[in-house]
């Protein structure tokens, strides 16, 4: 169980709503609520915005495809024993 109460998207200010829309576009999925990590990142835009931009730069296609990078992200999560 999370150590914090994850707020509903509706509890966030309007600037965060735009981030949640970007999250839907990124995952190409219509979430009932934005993913927990998106809501965590939206809590502090001063951190979440540049962190998100760095993530998108890293995940964008280049020498490796986005799909390949998702697999890299998965194995890194696995090695870090992170179930999220």
């Amino acid at each position, binding site marked *: 169980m999370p150590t914090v109460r994850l707020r509903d998207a509706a509890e966030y200010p309007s600037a965060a709503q735009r981030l949640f829309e970007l999250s839907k576009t990124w995952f190409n999925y219509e979430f009932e609520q934005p993913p*927990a990590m998106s809501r965590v990142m939206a809590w502090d835009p001063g951190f979440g915005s540049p962190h998100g931009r760095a993530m998108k730069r890293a995940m964008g296609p280049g020498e490796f495809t986005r799909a390949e990078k998702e697999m*890299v992200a998965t194995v890194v*999560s696995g090695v*870090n024993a*992170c179930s999220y």
Partner: protein
Amino acid sequence: MAADAPWYEAALLVGITNALNVVADGLGTADSKPLLNPRGDEGTSSELASLFADIRAFYACQEIPAPFRLMANDPGYAADVWEAVKHAFSDHHLSRRFKEALAFAVSLTSRSTFGTAFHLAEMRRLGIGERGVMEVLGVTQMFSSYTKIADTLQLEPDMGHIAPVDRTPAPGGRAL
């Protein structure tokens, strides 16, 4: 990557990469006196000479990677592990080039001195440029951040359902 096959392949690769790193880092590499003597080329049996030749051919270099010299103290065991390594790193659903990138990410994440240097060198040997290296480094670093944030807040998985389910049977099996 919608099918399961590449994910099984990646998981086996992660496992065997970690297995090599554990031996190389745990028992010592070039910078320290090894805790177990690495087996040299001198006085090797034909079985071991054949194994070393196959390893050299696969990596296109004269140097035998440290974990294989350590494991070669038991040639039969080393040969079995090598067969698994060679299979795991060969082109199949995933390319050998990409597999070296995965192994680099695994090694960097697990702080393996041997694995990080070895798989970085292999990535470059197989044609991955500095941009590609930086891409893998970036993904590894970003997801080393996300995972720790998620763990600290004990977030529960909430995205597993967005992936399609692969209903195909196991290799050689039949669908139910």
